[in-house]
């Protein structure tokens, strides 16, 4: 069994995100990190590999992004992936969800995975959708926002919260599964794994290497246009109390509640 894990480099959570007013794109400069949800996807792959219910030959981290995105791959490898693939090409810049899903699917086709895992959302943009886009291009069954996953008789048994409670779904392989952060506690990489990460094989692919049509990605392939970026509707800022003396703070809260007749 071969597992591919889709990973993404995102701005560090501590960095304030901004939109470039000219290009209307997210300013992706500044500190970057591996998307936290993707660390759960890698951990899920490692647990299948180590769990003994499936024979996993290889865990491959796959990303699409500029040269700097190798750092996300190094992190993925330090967390257990055996090797990595980076789809990187100037033609991909400014790709929207539709184009990104297509490009990732083309990259995955070359790998022929039995299972594709990814984090259910990224910190910096398009949430929840990439897994289902990729799955349809690959003609694979798919489930997103999975919080429990077991391999049984060559199939996956997945659980997730849906509109009406918890659903349990059986999925045949090959499949695309996006996972939530409740699925596991990702391990910390060992110092040795961090040091060794740069030595693991990393394939860089351009769009021509995986049969991506240039007209379907990047600015040319965009199916949506951002017309304007506006400030959000203003809500009057609330009152903030820094708790220094708790008795005093509590007194203020009670007075605030009483004023609004909430203690009647």
């Amino acid at each position, binding site marked *: 069994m071969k597992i591919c894990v889709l990973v993404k480099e995102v701005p560090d959570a501590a960095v304030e995100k901004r*939109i470039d007013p000219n290009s209307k794109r997210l300013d992706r400069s500044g500190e970057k990190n591996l998307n936290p949800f993707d660390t759960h996807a890698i951990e899920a792959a490692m647990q299948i590999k180590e769990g003994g219910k499936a024979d996993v030959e290889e865990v491959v981290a796959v990303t699409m992004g500029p040269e700097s995105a190798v750092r996300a791959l190094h992190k993925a490898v330090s967390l257990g992936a055996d090797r990595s693939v980076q789809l990187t090409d100037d033609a991909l810049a400014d790709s929207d969800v539709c184009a990104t899903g*297509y490009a990732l699917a083309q990259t995955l086709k070359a790998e022929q995975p039995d299972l594709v895992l990814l984090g259910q959302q990224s910190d910096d943009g398009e949430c929840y*959708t990439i897994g289902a886009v990729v799955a*349809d291009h690959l003609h*694979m069954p798919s489930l997103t926002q999975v919080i429990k996953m077991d391999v049984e008789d060559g199939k996956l048994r997945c659980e997730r919260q849906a*509109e009406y409670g918890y659903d349990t779904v059986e999925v045949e392989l090959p499949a695309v599964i996006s996972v939530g952060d409740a699925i596991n506690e990702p391990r910390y990489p060992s110092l040795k794994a961090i040091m060794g990460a740069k030595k693991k094989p990393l394939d860089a692919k351009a769009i021509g290497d995986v049969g991506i049509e240039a007209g379907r990605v990047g600015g040319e392939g*965009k199916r949506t246009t951002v017309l304007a970026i506006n400030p*959000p509707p203003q809500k009057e800022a609330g009152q903030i*109390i820094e708790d220094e003396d*708790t008795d005093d703070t509590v007194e203020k809260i009670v007075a605030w509640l009483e004023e609004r007749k909430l203690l009647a």
Partner: protein
Amino acid sequence: MSGILTYALHYEGEFNKNSLGAVSEGAKLAKEIGGDAAVVVVGGDDLTDELCGSLGKYGATKVFRAKAPEGLAQPVVDVMAKVIQDNGYGYALFGGGLLGFEIGAGLTARLGGGVTMEVTEVKAQDGKLVAVRPILQDSAVAEVDYVGEPGIIIGRLNAFEMSESGDGAAPVEDVDVQLSDWSTKATMVQRGEQRGADVNIEDANILVAGGRGLGKPEGFELAEALAEALGGAVAATRAVVDAGWYPYAAQIGQTGKTVAPKLYLAAGISGAIQHKVGMQSSENIVAINKDPNAPIFEFSDLGIVGDLNKILPKLTEAVKAKKGA
């Protein structure tokens, strides 16, 4: 082509509230840009003529009904792709919720249409639709239009209001769709399982909601004591429900319940978008969090930066004393 195709989710013979909001929104927009306000429903025998026709009340002008497995996205992608190809709808519209995201994403791949998600408003401009969506943790709002067809619009939870604008039953047309191979490779084993105690948080006037900041499952005892003193109920975030600290029935947000009590007191909740959409209509929002940068302070009426382990017990005592007086 024009016209809007909306997906309506149902469960045990009833349509989903968010789907009915989307149907209402689709009907309103179709009047502005022209064309049908059509709806797709997918499921089994509980989709009676009467139930499907009732979507006419919300402005649907036509209902397409297909027999296929329920609760999974990919069969619905097959159905909607066929209906759009056969009838040429210009837009596909979804209310909030997990299936809407999955179906919309699948359609994008299948038909090559553009997609926007977490949409809070849709505007009709020059016979086309423009989607308005908050981005970057709601710090900015983007207006997006579509290149080519269909344009796929995935709403944020509760973005679209239900409105009974139609008159009479909508005509129902059965569609026969050959499911894709891969759509039949996921099977629902159990749907809608309830876990944990039954808590009614939707009718409570006062809610004390707990998040990861409570530190451990036992932290909920502090929230419960305060809720009891205030005469309210306890709610929880997805993170703590997923972690098993509190029952699903108490969950607020994207995949949980939507509430609008008189007082919403959030203890140890950072205020992620997925939580915010479920409680932002509350009349009074009080937040206690030790992180001064927590997003919840941006939409609370009273914010307390401090340690809830110190504040909650004293607040409970003070409320008791005040109420007893």
